[in-house]
């Protein structure tokens, strides 16, 4: 190998890295490493001037290896690979050292952080020497899509794709389309009918010849890779194999089980109901207590299961506006009724929501604020009282304990991850966060993609959201899919395993290790061979091969050995 010419670029990330790590010193230390031709520290390497600097050095100084010490490669590896390609260098001649997420953001001692950044950069410099030019692979893109979940999100995604002329398989677990929204009366803050929103979409979806709807159905298996998945959909009609290029997971949420909050007595006290049970009353147009008479006092309690240490720490986002909606719907049905709204904090962040909050005050909803991690107490009413029960609230604003007369209590139940979320995550090979929600590729820059290429998430399966956001995500996911369909073929990573046929002993140890069945045994030559388009580059076979005949491209033994030497 000719002596490599390495350029090292140490990003300051504004002050994100520089405030803890001495970037100039990291660059200086790197410049003393063998093969390093130039080493620079710069404010923002990912910016256009930063990338131009790298491109200029590659072209003018004849660099053939580049190390960028900056943020996580999960963030900007593709950016800098693009810069190398633009300069005419194979993009795999790049290595990144993560001196932000693993250094400046987690350490406070500048000396120790600078030493660590220097070590990580040295590891990258040593490793990049052994990098090889890798060629891109292209695979055909199947234009059909599997949409899992037939709520507002899944329906929107299915329609968007199908109306652009693409085949969609829409799989719904229950016996009807519409999801949770089908159980809602009006929507906040414009009081549109949920039934109108959802029914029109269901009709369009069921009439569209490009959409195959499976009800009471389940995706049994998903194999393959981006552009070329194979799934099995099981329903009453048997198991159907489908071929698709992309998957949209829109499995939604489960309403919190209110009976878990023992103090409210949901399930034992018939006049304590959940928001979904109240929606059913509203849809029937009959708001009644268990004695069959209209309530004079209705109390709505926010954050049931949400923003609590005991249940879920997060905000479920839609309950505040739904609670305000109840004030309006009750006053419109029962003008003489009193509506009490017991909240922790009022979250009215969406478009039109602050105005909606104002309207709720104008119709004389009585607001009372209680302390987080406490709950209003329910006391039974006596024979002389004109109400079913009292709610004892420690009102934070007046500082007084107040007993509110109440006939009907509505518990604003939050959203939680569905019970089958772990199973679904495993099926489509994506991750879940600590609360069970599916994890996106990047929370800000890549919100509907996942770590599995070709699998997208949209709507409440990712975290609680309102209808607007769910629909926007459904459309975002379909835009990503249609961009791939439009290209016709997709570029897949050039990183995969390959068997050196001369070294292979034909022992077949690797054959059963591959989770994707990507290793083929040729019975004539008695050698194993990796089918590169099916390989996902985990490297299990590379490590297991007793003859060291398998090379894991871009994660070779010599690259990793060099990096180990470098960081120590």
């Amino acid at each position, binding site marked *: 190998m000719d002596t490599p010419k390495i350029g090292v670029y140490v990003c300051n990330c504004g002050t994100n890295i520089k405030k803890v790590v001495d970037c100039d010193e990291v660059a200086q230390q790197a410049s003393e490493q063998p093969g390093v031709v130039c080493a620079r520290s710069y404010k923002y390497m990912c910016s256009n001037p930063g990338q131009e600097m790298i491109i200029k050095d590659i072209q003018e100084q004849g660099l053939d290896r580049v190390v960028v010490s900056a943020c*996580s*490669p*999960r963030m900007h590896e593709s950016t800098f690979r693009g810069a190398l390609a633009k300069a005419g260098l194979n993009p795999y001649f790049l290595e990144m050292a*993560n001196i*932000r*997420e*693993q250094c400046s*953001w*987690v*350490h*406070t*001692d500048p000396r*120790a*952080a600078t*030493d*660590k950044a220097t*070590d*990580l950069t040295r*590891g990258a410099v040593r490793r990049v020497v052994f990098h090889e030019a890798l060629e891109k692979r292209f695979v055909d893109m199947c234009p059909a899509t599997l949409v899992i979940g037939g709520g507002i999100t899944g329906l929107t995604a299915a329609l968007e794709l199908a109306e652009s002329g693409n085949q969609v398989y829409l799989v719904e677990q229950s016996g009807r389309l519409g999801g949770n929204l089908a159980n809602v009366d009006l929507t906040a803050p414009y009081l549109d009918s949920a039934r109108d929103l959802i029914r029109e979409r269901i009709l369009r979806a069921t009439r569209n010849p490009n959409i195959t709807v499976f009800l009471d159905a389940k995706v049994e298996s998903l194999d393959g890779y981006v552009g070329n998945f194979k799934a099995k959909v099981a329903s009453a009609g048997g198991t159907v194999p489908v071929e698709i290029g992309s998957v949209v997971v829109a499995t939604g949420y489960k309403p919190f089980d209110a009976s878990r909050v023992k103090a409210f007595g949901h399930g034992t006290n018939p006049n304590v109901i959940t928001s979904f049970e109240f929606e059913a009353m509203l849809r029937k147009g009959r708001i009644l207590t268990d004695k069959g008479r209209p309530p004079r006092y209705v109390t709505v309690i926010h954050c049931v299961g949400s923003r609590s240490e005991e249940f879920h720490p997060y905000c479920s986002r839609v309950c505040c506006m739904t609670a305000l909606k109840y004030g309006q719907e009750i006053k419109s049905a029962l003008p003489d009724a009193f509506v009490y709204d017991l909240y922790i904090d009022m979250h009215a962040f969406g478009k039109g929501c602050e105005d909606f909050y104002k309207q709720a005050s104008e119709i004389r909803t009585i607001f009372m604020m209680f302390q987080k991690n406490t709950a209003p107490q329910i006391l039974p009413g006596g024979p002389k009282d004109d109400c079913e029960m009292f709610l004892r609230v420690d009102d934070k604003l007046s500082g007084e304990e107040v007993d509110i007369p109440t006939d009907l209590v509505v518990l604003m139940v939050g959203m939680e991850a569905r019970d089958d979320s772990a199973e679904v*995550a*495993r099926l489509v*090979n994506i*991750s*879940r*966060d*600590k609360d069970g929600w599916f*994890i996106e590729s990047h929370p800000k820059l890549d919100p509907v993609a996942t*770590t*599995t290429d070709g699998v997208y998430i949209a709507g409440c399966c990712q975290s609680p959201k309102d209808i607007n956001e769910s629909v926007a995500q459904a459309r975002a996911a379909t835009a990503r899919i249609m961009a791939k369909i439009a290209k016709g073929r997709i570029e897949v990573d050039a*990183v995969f395993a390959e068997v050196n046929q001369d070294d292979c002993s034909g022992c077949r140890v690797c054959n059963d*290790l591959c*989770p994707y069945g990507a290793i083929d045994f040729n019975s004539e030559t008695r050698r194993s061979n990796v089918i590169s388009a099916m390989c*996902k*580059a*985990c*490297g*299990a076979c*590379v*490590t*297991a091969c007793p003859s060291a005949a398998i090379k*894991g491209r871009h*994660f070779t*033994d010599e690259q*990793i*050995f060099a*990096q*180990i*030497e470098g*960081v*120590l």
Partner: protein
Amino acid sequence: MMSNGFEPKIVGFLCNWCSYTGADLAGTSRIKYATNLRVIRTMCSARIDPTFILKALLEGADGVLICGCHPGDCHYVEGNYKAMRRYPLLKRLLDAYGIENERVQLEWVSASEGRRFAEVVDRMTEQIKALGPCKVRTALAFDMAER
């Protein structure tokens, strides 16, 4: 403390999908932890060859941390089980060489466990500090001289 002022060097092999992402989350969450770990990324914990670990110890690491996805959550279906099965064999090998086997540790860290990652690094750093520097190189040098 017996390991007065000793700052061990620990090499961490992290799988790309869970543990490396978990370490990134510790960063984006600004969770502070010990500076002793040097991370090397592999795509899957199944790729972490026992020779990587021995190489790190021979090159002067005082400890080696292996992190992968929790059992059942592997991005590559079951790569972490392969890592899990290799690990006890490696420990026996370390015992045979006279290297304290606590110097090599296997932990599962998911993409959402930034805090757990920081705790793992802190705990392991303290344990290695208590063990003191790894003597594998001096032991080998002695071995060579004997011959």
